Every structure is written in C-alpha cells, then in structure tokens.
C-alpha cells in the first residue's frame, strides 16, 4: 500500500503557559487520502484547530512535542525552514476562519493572490526587494504574469469581475468574496492538500453552502485532499467523506461520515449530535453539554470526557482507553463502546437527521437540524 | 526584565526621593547658600562628595535641598493640572452641548501646541520666577486631564448606576460627586504619575533657560545652567543635577507605566487616546 497523502501519527502539540503546559493536541493520529475530504469536528478547545496549524507548522507559540506529520511520506515535524516553505508553497495550503482578518488590509487582493503565485513559481530564493515592490529590483514581467494568473484563479472561484476586483482592497469586499480570494491564494500553489480551518463559520448560510460546494468540486477536479475543521456537524455531514471527532486534544471517534453520524458509538459524539439538533449556537453548545470542558492543562491519564460522560465507570479515569473497531474504518476510543442499545431517543433523533441527509443530498444538513425541538424535551442526561 | 521588578525599582526610586526631600536638608552637613571662594570648583572628594560649584558651595547639599524644591514644585503643578483638568472635564462631559464643544476646542488647541514653547512664552511674559514657571506649566498642561475625565464621564454617565441615581432624583452635584468622580479617578491618578516626570523635566528645562528659579536657589535646572560655563574644568556641575533629574523622571515613569498596566483595559484605552 502506498503512503496516504497525509498521515499524522500520535501528534502532541503543547503550549507553555504560566500555569503549566497545555496539551492542546494529545496523541492525535489521522490520515487523508488524495481526493478525500476529511472533517474534524469538536467544540472550541478540542485541539482541532491546533492540529490543523501543526500540519502547516504554523503552530507557534505552541510546539510539537512528539509524533510525526508525514506528507507523501516526508516528515514535516523536523523539516528545515526552506523545506517547509517549499511545502507550503507547493503542496499544502491553508484557509483560516475569518477572511476579514486573514487578508492583509494594506495590500490589494490581486497582489496577495499574485504573491502566492510567485512563491509557487519561483523555486528557491525569494528576494525581499522583489516582493517589496521596489521598482528597480522588481521582476516586472514575472509579476505581470503572476497577476494574470491571479485574475484567472479569482475567476475560477466565481469572483465576479475579477480583473476589476483584483486591484481592490479586502475591506471593499463582502465576506464571501474575501473568502473566495483566500481560497484563490490557497489554490495558487496548486496544492495536493488543503487544510481549511472553519472556512465558513464567519459567513452567512447561503455563502457557506456555495463555498462548501466549491470545495467539493475542487476535490473532484483536482484530486485535492481536504482536511476540513468545523464545530458544525451540519457542515461536516454536508461536505466530508470521513469524520474525526475530537475532544480534549484526543480523537474520540472516527470513521465514514454516514457511519459515525448515524450510529455514533462514543458518548461524546452522541452528546454533540443531540446538541446540534437543538439548533444552538456554536458557543452555546459548549455550555449545553453538562459539566465543564476538560482541564486544558491535561496530559493526565484516562478519558478526557470522563468528567461529563453519563456512561462513566471508575476505569475511565485511569490508564489507557481502548480503541474499539465497530465497523469498517469506524473506530471509537471508549471503554464502554459500543453503546448499541441505550439512549433510544438519541438513536431515533440521529436516524431522522441522517436519513434526511441521505435522501436529499442537495439539501444542506443544517436545514434538518433546524427543525424545532423544545429545548428540554431531550438531552444527554 | 519582569515588569513587577520594574515596578519595584520605580517605586524604590520615588520612595528614596521622598525620603531625601524630607530628611535630606536636615542631614546635609553644609548650608546650601554658604559660599567658600577659597574652595571653588573643587573636584569630588571625601569632604565634598560631589565637589563644589563656582562659588565654593557644596553640590551635594544643594542637590539635597533642591530635591524638596523640585518634588514640591512638581507635586504642586501636577495637582493644579489635575484639579483644573478634572473640573473642566467633568463640566464638558456632564454639560455637553456648546459648553462641551467650546471647552474641547480649547483642549485640542492646547494639546496640539508644543507645551514647553507655550509655557516658555507665558512664563517669559509674566517675568522670570519659579512661581511664574509653575503657573505657566499648569496653564499648558491641564488639557490632557480634561480630555481623559471627559471621556470617562461620557462612558460612565450611560452606565446603570448613574442612570439609577438620576432616576432617583438625585441632584447633579450629587451624581457627579458620588458616582462620577470616584469612578473616573483611577486613570487620572495614573496620568498624574506619568505626568510628574514631564513636569519635572519642564520645570528644569525652563529654569535652565533662565526663566524659573533664580540663583542662588538650589533648583536642579538652575544649577545645571550655571554649570554650563564650567564644562571643561568642572564636569560634575552639570552632571550631578543631570543624573538626579534623569533618575527622578525615570522613577516616576516606571511607576506610571506599571500603574497603567494595572488599569482595566477600557481605562488604559482612554489613557492611550491622549
């Protein structure tokens, strides 16, 4: 078997703080194949975003304490700066959450896309004066080409009137256009892997659906592997092939989207699904789960969800938690799994949710989630 | 450098200065005005740790006496600035309308103009004396307090407890005195601490130019100015007061910086606008 596009093994990314070491990512393993969209879902603080950043090695101020991140078999955790630059410029691109913040406000959008094109085109050295646009030191023809390519890319991403827009500044555009521009920057390097960290969270629902749709066509056209990070199960269900559920820096459950979302075997996944059907906001969801999120200082034994879990046993607090295979590629990290025959209400709920999604694939999942449910008529207690 | 250690250094310097200003003059072995023409411009020695000046007076003694003067002047000027500025700020913020408009125009003009030059002109017209310098520095320096207090008042007057007091039918004076002043005071105190260094520099600068304390008053700036004619043969005459002025201002700046860091974000944002 050949190497997968991305293979992360036992990744530990930590942050040193005044009160101790924060184990943001605590032994995560995952793979992404070419042409596959893998989702990571979890609440804020679950370590999903830090996992994403670690791949591009922009985890600063955190640091990778252990584990490997292999891209086409090449380990990135000990790569040199120039190797990393090559990889960022050629193989992996990243899209961050808020396009209002991720585009540089003082440069035109076209300039920022063209810059990414130039980085991809030039092997080796990037000259400061060339990039600073100092007249005599700037390679005019190369930049003109890069600008042309930038306009093309913007056009491919359905930015209307791209030639005109490329000279505009980020603040002049709507969130949707900005995020398309960010995608254009990401695709300028013709990457094999796209890491998208909450790419649609800051956008309205219509734009969100358009962008997610775009991601799927990109995957089809380019054999692009995509790692999509979201707190929104609807987004994941709508877009991904496989899903990884994270909590407290660890993977709780992973598997094909249909399996995980129809037959969730981890108590946390169930809680998450139950909450999302209540149609609450991302931030509220955290409080909607009973109990406190895990101690961020972490790094201790046992299951991080034990404190809030209603299936908790004394064994959950200590030692290694077993990984249980409960379907093809469907794994659960829980000593009580599989939870086949309790919580009938949740079963029923998720079944209706999923069947709706299956029968009407074009219908965004969020629509189903939006059905009115009285806040207290069900739950995880 | 950890910031808490800087705070300690700043507080230590300020405390030491206060001690010097209080006890220094009584402890000093010489009379600050006592001339001894036989021993003029003597280099630092065991007898005169910081040497003697062009009239044979002990430099250390004069500096110690000057500490009381400098700190006293700085405290007085800052206090006048603070009181005037606070009153104007309260008035502008609470009255609103054209009163606010007019006062803030004045504040803008004062803030836009180079303060020392304005103070120089005012003090110059009033005539050279320490009191006139103090007056001039007070006149040019209250504007930043007024703006700070005004912005505090504007943000506070919409807060519930002020509205509640007004609805309860409290008088304006009551609302201002009991609710607005106590809440606006913390950033003002920080500003004052940061301002003291500037006042000391300003007083010394104007005195140096000859507008402030007149010889033989042992004012630091005046002492520095009279040392300028003896740069070659008596370098300690300008450097002793120079070092002392710098240390003093440094101490107050350190203290002010750490106090500002201790303020709440909104309060320091108001300070930052100045």
């Amino acid at each position, binding site marked *: 078997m050949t190497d997968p596009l991305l293979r992360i093994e036992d990744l530990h990314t930590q942050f040193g703080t005044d009160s101790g070491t924060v184990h943001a990512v605590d032994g995560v393993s995952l793979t992404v194949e070419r042409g596959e969209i893998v989702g990571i879902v979890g609440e804020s603080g679950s370590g999903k975003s830090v996992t994403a950043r670690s791949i591009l090695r*922009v985890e600063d101020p955190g640091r990778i304490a252990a584990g490997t991140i292999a891209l086409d078999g090449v380990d990135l955790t000990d790569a040199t700066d120039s190797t990393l630059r090559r990889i*960022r*410029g050629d193989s992996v691109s990243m899209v961050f959450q808020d396009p209002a913040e991720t*585009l540089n406000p003082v440069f035109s959008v076209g300039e920022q896309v063209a810059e990414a094109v130039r980085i991809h085109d030039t092997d080796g050295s990037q000259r400061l004066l060339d990039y600073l646009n100092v007249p005599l030191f700037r390679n005019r023809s190369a930049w003109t080409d890069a600008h042309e390519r930038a306009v093309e890319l913007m056009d491919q991403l359905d930015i209307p009137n791209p030639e005109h827009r490329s000279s505009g*500044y980020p603040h002049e555009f709507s969130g949707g256009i900005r995020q398309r521009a960010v995608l254009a920057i990401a695709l300028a390097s013709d990457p094999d892997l796209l890491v998208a960290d909450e790419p649609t969270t800051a956008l309205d629902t219509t734009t969100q659906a358009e962008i997610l749709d775009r991601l799927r066509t990109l995957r089809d056209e380019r054999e692009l592997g995509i790692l999509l990070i979201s707190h929104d199960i609807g987004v994941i269900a709508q877009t991904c092939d496989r899903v990884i559920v994270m909590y407290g820096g660890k993977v709780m459950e992973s598997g094909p989207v249909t399996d995980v979302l129809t037959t969730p075997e981890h108590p946390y996944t169930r809680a998450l699904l139950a909450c999302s059907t209540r149609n609450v906001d991302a931030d509220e969801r955290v409080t909607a789960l009973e109990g406190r999120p895990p101690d961020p200082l972490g790094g201790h034994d046992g299951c991080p969800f034990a404190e809030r879990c209603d299936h908790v046993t004394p064994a959950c607090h200590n030692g290694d938690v077993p990984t249980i295979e409960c379907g093809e590629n469907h794994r659960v990290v829980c000593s009580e799994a599989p939870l086949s025959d309790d919580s009938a209400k949740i079963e029923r709920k998720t079944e209706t949710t999923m069947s709706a999604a299956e029968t009407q694939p074009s219908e965004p999942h969020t629509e189903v989630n939006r059905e009115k449910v009285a806040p207290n008529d069900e739950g995880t207690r | 450098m950890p910031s808490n250690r800087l705070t300690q250094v700043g507080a230590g310097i300020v405390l030491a200065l206060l001690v010097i200003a209080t006890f220094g003059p009584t402890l000093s072995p010489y009379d600050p005005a006592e001339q001894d023409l036989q021993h003029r411009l003597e280099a630092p020695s065991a007898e005169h740790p910081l040497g003697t000046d062009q009239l044979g007076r002990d430099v250390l003694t004069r500096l110690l006496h000057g500490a009381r003067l400098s700190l006293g002047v700085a405290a007085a000027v800052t206090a006048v600035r603070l009181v005037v500025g606070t009153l104007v700020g309260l008035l502008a913020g609470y009255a609103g309308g054209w009163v606010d408009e007019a006062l803030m125009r004045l504040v803008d003009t004062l803030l836009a103009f180079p303060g020392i030059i304005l103070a120089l002109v005012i003090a110059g017209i009033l005539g050279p004396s320490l009191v006139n310098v103090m007056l001039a520095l007070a006149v040019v320096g209250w504007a930043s307090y007024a703006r700070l207090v005004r912005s505090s008042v504007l943000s506070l007057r919409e807060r519930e407890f002020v509205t509640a007091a007004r609805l309860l039918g409290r008088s304006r004076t009551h609302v201002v005195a009991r609710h607005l002043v106590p809440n606006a005071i913390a950033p003002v105190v920080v500003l004052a601490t940061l301002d003291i260094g500037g006042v000391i520099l300003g007083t010394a600068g104007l005195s140096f130019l000859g507008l402030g304390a007149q010889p033989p008053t042992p004012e630091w700036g005046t002492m520095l100015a009279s040392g300028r004619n003896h740069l070659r043969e008596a370098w300690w005459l300008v450097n002793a007061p*120079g070092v002392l002025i710098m240390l003093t201002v440094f101490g107050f700046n350190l203290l002010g910086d750490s106090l500002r860091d201790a303020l709440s974000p909104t309060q320091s944002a108001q300070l930052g606008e100045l």
Partner: protein
Amino acid sequence: MAVVLLGVSLLTYGMIFVTPGDPARTILTQQMGGQTPTPAAVEQFRAANGLDDPFVVQYARWMGGVVQGDLGQSYYSDQSVSAMIVQRLPNTIELAVASMLVAVAIAVPAGIVSAVNPESRADYAAQFGSLVGVSMPNFWLGFLLIIVCSLWLGIFPVAGAGGVEYLVLPALTLGSGMAAVITRLVRTAMLDALDAAYIQTAQSKGLRERIVVYKHALRNALVPVVTIIGLQLSYVLNGAVVVEVVFQRPGLGTLLVDAIFARDYPIVQGVTLLIGVIFVVTNFAVDLTYRRLDPRIDLKGDTA
C-alpha cells in the same frame, strides 16, 4: 483646522494684553536698563507702536499684516520680524530634519528587533534604553555630549552653526530623545501586526520570514508609526528651543528665548504663531500620509 489656527493666533497675540502691567512701560524700563521711563517716553512708545488702540483693532491690524506675510517690526532691531525668522528658520529646519532622521534611524530598527524577538536580551535592552531616553533631560544630554565628544575627544565643535560638524551633536541630542518614544511605539505596532491573522496567511503561503516581517507586518505597523513620527514634531520644536540654547545655534528657538528676555513682543508673537502654523500644517500632512498608507481610511471617512 482654521479654528485651531485662529485660536493659536488669538492666544499668542492676546497673551501680552492679559498680563499685568503696561507693556510699554515694561519694555521701556527694560530698554533703558532698569530706569523708570518718563511718562512722555511711554506715551511716545505707545503711539509709535499703536498700543493705544483697543485690543480688537490692534489684533485686526496685526492679522491683516500676518496674512500678507508681515509680522511687524522688532522693538530693537531694524529688521522686520519676518526677515529675522526667515534668517533663522533654515537652521531650525536643518536641526529638526536631522534629528528626525537620527530618531527614525535608531527607533525603527530597534523597535523591529525588539518586536521580532520579544523578551530577548535585545528586546529588554531596547525597552530599557527607551525608558532612559524618555527620562533624559535633553539639555543635560547635550552637555554630556559636549563634554565627551568636544572637550575630551575633540571630534566636534562645542557650539554654533555652520557645516555638518555643527549639526551632529544637536541632532543626536534631540534625535535620541525622540527615538526613545518612537521605539516603544514601533515595538507595540509591530507586535500587534505580527500577531494578526494575515501574518499566518502569509506564512502558510510559503513566504520567507524576512518578507513576512518586512512586507506584511511592517507595512501595517507603519500606519500608526507615521502618525506618531509626524506628531513628534511637537517634541522636536519643544526640544529645539532648549537644544539650540545648549549648543548656541542661531535658530527659531534661540530667537524666541532672546526675544522673551528682551521683551521684544512682536518677535515672540511672530515665532509663536509660526510654530502654531507649522503644527497645524504638519497634522494635516500626517493625515494625508495616513490615508495613503491605510486603504481603509477613505471608507471610514465616508461612513463616519
């Protein structure tokens, strides 16, 4: 802006009238070396200088001249105030520009190094240095430089004006104080910029760290820095007065100080007004630069 200018002119002109005592008498006393002038002499002086007219008339007459570039006549010298200012202005401008250059040359690199390596030795050194610089009275620093560089080492002339050698020490004196303020600001602005999300975008494009810092971060940090550098003109002018006196440079500052001691009010008024005008104009220029540096400003201006 016009309001501020008018306010400055009123302030500078009116100040002399609100001061206690009769200006004519004070001036004559001073001119005569302390003797009390005869009432006739006072009358004559008042008539000659138009001091008998009401304030409004005098002010209007003065302003009428001002808009034509006529700031009046010195009480002592035969020269007009404008001529004296024109003669001295180049020296002050030279000093101001040179010290700005010194300040920027010190502060921008120091601030960047400090921000790029936070909590390093270099950072602490820069922070400590700028605190000391802010606390340093520039008249003392001037003397210190004179003692070391001129008297001990003999590299630069002690005082006066002329070639570049006369400019070095004054510019260093004035520039280093300013550098202290600007360093702190560059550091904060750079830290803010480096913390922004667009820096991560730039990094994840595969851009070299140098380009990330000097293109993406610095360009954003420049926006507030340029404003403050412009507003530091206040500091330059304040400081120029003292520094010119320390180094006995014939400039606006020495002109003003001399005029104040001589009670040559037309010069005091003229110089003060000029400084006010320089001020307002600089603020305006800073505003324009600011707009050029930050494309967002125009939009804000439209909506606000």
